[in-house]
């Protein structure tokens, strides 16, 4: 709350700085704004930015560093015997953080597990340090804000290039924003990478990449039943690929033909109704598709298979793949429709003008011209199919069978990641670390697909110039 108030004060100062900066810029020219290098607003913005940016950055830095610094001060002041175990060793990290939690709880008036005088004294110091820190922060932040504003205010002169400065600052802010996205991705990749490396110290890379047996368990005791774990990722990727293939077999023809109908044959009023309706398919939560697959499609396939004398398990790759295919139809159809519509009308007229029929025009002119864009759309749909989890959990099962028969239960990478991490788990066993390795591998696969899709789309852009 207090922090929010402080931020509000800084924002208020910025507003005041803006007003004064703009006023002064007009005043320094004696009221003739045409003599200024930039519009008066830019001088106002310049003052406001110098007022707000350093102060807010300082505030953020302060809040990030404050807990660490206070913790160090409090720990230094604790009597040394509190930090020792009965056997004379320094206490471990877990106990230390317990102790600090106690201090913090006492300081904020909550119930704590200890009430030793030394701890209570430390809590008192902790509370007072917090107060001092906050007071200091308010003073420093506000003085930086006012100092910045005053310095910028003094800079204002008719020849001062406020617009260029403001535009530069704004440009830097945009760079910072894009950095956030990039750094987040980088952070995720790195954390995946390090956990994966830890996993590979316990399970050999070759077993993970080429092993055909997936049975992720680690023994607590050596004589335990089922103690032998196996981490071969091949069945998972085979299952993923099979389900994605089935899904694409459904989605590509249906989506593509729907797109061609919408773009080339449908009257305009039909198209305006049908296209949004198809896109609604993309808005249905995947869990809804999941129980549709599990409760309707899977039993249907099993009964049909039974009539034909085939043995179909009640959870099958086919059921999951079919429903997933329905789910990604809108990706294929909508993107392809956009690409087909983007083919210039002059191409169609050129072809019709030569006496080509509509279908000849579509097959020989429109489709080849739109092909790269269509491929891009299909690849996006493939990455979507590979990443899909819910439908597979519900309809295809958890058994990691290495099979080419779509009537059997299979499992996919994403499903296994979920099951590995659900429930009470230690975060240093091979079982949980395997999730990171799977994640990294899956990420690599989808990344490669996306790169290909982007590349194809870029190539398409160069086609008509």
């Amino acid at each position, binding site marked *: 709350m207090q922090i929010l108030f402080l931020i509000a004060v800084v924002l208020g100062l910025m507003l005041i700085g803006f007003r004064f900066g703009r006023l002064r810029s007009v005043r320094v020219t004696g009221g003739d704004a045409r003599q200024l290098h930039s519009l008066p607003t830019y001088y106002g913005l310049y003052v406001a930015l110098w007022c707000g940016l350093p102060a807010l950055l300082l505030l953020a830095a302060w809040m990030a560093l404050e807990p660490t610094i206070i913790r160090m001060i409090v720990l230094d002041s604790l009597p040394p015997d509190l930090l020792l175990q009965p056997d004379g060793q320094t206490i471990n990290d877990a106990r230390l953080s317990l102790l600090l939690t106690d201090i913090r709880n006492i300081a904020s008036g909550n119930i704590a597990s200890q009430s030793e005088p030394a701890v209570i004294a430390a809590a008192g110091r902790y509370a007072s340090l917090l107060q001092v820190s906050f007071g200091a922060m308010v003073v420093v932040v506000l003085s930086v804000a006012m100092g910045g504003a005053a310095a910028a205010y003094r800079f204002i002169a008719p020849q001062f290039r406020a617009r260029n400065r403001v535009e530069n600052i704004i440009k830097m802010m945009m760079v910072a924003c894009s950095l956030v996205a990039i750094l987040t991705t980088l952070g995720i990749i790195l954390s995946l990478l390090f956990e994966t490396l830890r996993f590979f110290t316990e399970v050999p890379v070759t077993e993970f990449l080429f092993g055909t047996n997936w049975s992720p368990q680690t023994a607590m005791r050596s004589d335990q039943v089922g103690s032998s774990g196996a981490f071969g990722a091949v069945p998972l990727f085979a299952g993923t690929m099979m389900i994605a293939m089935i899904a694409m077999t459904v989605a590509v023809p249906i989506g593509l033909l729907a797109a061609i109908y919408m773009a080339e044959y449908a009257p305009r009023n039909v198209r305006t109704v049908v296209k949004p309706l198809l896109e609604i398919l993309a808005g249905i939560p995947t869990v809804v598709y999941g129980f549709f697959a599990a409760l309707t499609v899977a039993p249907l396939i099993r009964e049909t298979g039974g009539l034909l004398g085939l043995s179909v398990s009640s959870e099958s790759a086919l059921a999951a793949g079919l429903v997933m295919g329905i789910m990604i139809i809108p990706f294929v159809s909508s993107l392809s429709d956009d690409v087909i519509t983007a083919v210039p009308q002059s*191409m169609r007229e050129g072809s*019709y*003008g*030569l006496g080509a*029929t509509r279908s000849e025009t579509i097959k*020989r002119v429109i489709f080849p*011209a739109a092909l790269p864009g269509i491929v891009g759309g299909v690849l996006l749909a493939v990455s979507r199919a590979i990443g899909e989890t819910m439908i597979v959990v519900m309809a295809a099962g958890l058994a990691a069978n290495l099979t080419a028969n779509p009537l059997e239960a299979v499992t996919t990478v994403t499903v296994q990641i979920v099951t590995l991490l659900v429930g009470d788990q230690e975060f240093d066993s091979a079982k949980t670390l395997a999730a990171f390795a799977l994640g990294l591998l899956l990420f690599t696969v989808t990344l490669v697909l996306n790169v290909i899709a982007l590349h194809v789309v870029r190539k398409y852009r160069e*086609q008509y110039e």
Partner: protein
Amino acid sequence: MKTSPSAQTSIEIPPTAGFPLVSQGEGAKIAARDVNVFYGDKQALRNIALDIKPNEVTAFIGPSGCGKSTFLRCLNRMNDIIDGCRVTGSINLDEEDIYHRRIDVVQLRARIGMVFQKPNPFPKSIYENVAYGPRIHGLARNKTDLDEIVQTSLERAGLLGEVKDRMDQPGTGLSGGQQQRLCIARAIAVNPEVILMDEPCSALDPIATAKIEELIDELRQNYTIVIVTHSMQQAARVSQRTAFFHLGNLVECNDTEQIFTNPQHKLTQGYITGRFG
């Protein structure tokens, strides 16, 4: 010589005195009578009656929005693909109504080729661009036949010399003028009887324009050509007959020389002397 009875019944423009129409049977390649075109509720053309003679270049001139392109596109039924466009009246090609139910629009367009305002080669190789029409109409029995059709078409379009070493390069990589000649070659390859050209030089520089105009004059030997143009000099240079359109009406149609030296109607006179348009 006779004046079509239904011609020029509109309000602003009275029937012109000198309105020489070739009546059907007197060798008109295309004869249009009572043609009205509507885009939705808006009427774009009123009671057009016009004859187009074989092996001549007929030019349509007139200010923007006068309906000359619309009329051109009626002649090979390209207006069919525009939503809400309706055509009434009759247009006969060799005494056969092209709007009759029995007419296959695909065959019609093979007989009446078209070249567009903006060069629109397909994003295929030069060879494939020209081979497109013969392929879909099955005009070549084998590869040698097809090669020959492509060669002669490019030759006739005056492009062969410039592209014979790079037939497998994309047609979109040519210059604007070359692209337009490629489109003409593409139209010729189907061996049409009539070629419609919708402002074929408006996107080209003067040198490319000169080449196309020369080409049009040569093509007249074998084809009937109808050209829409904004440039009166172009109409004067390439055409034998000129039709002047204004606000959806056909104001005057006569020998080009007559139109430019002795226009019968004061609107025509105003337009060719540059008083409006």
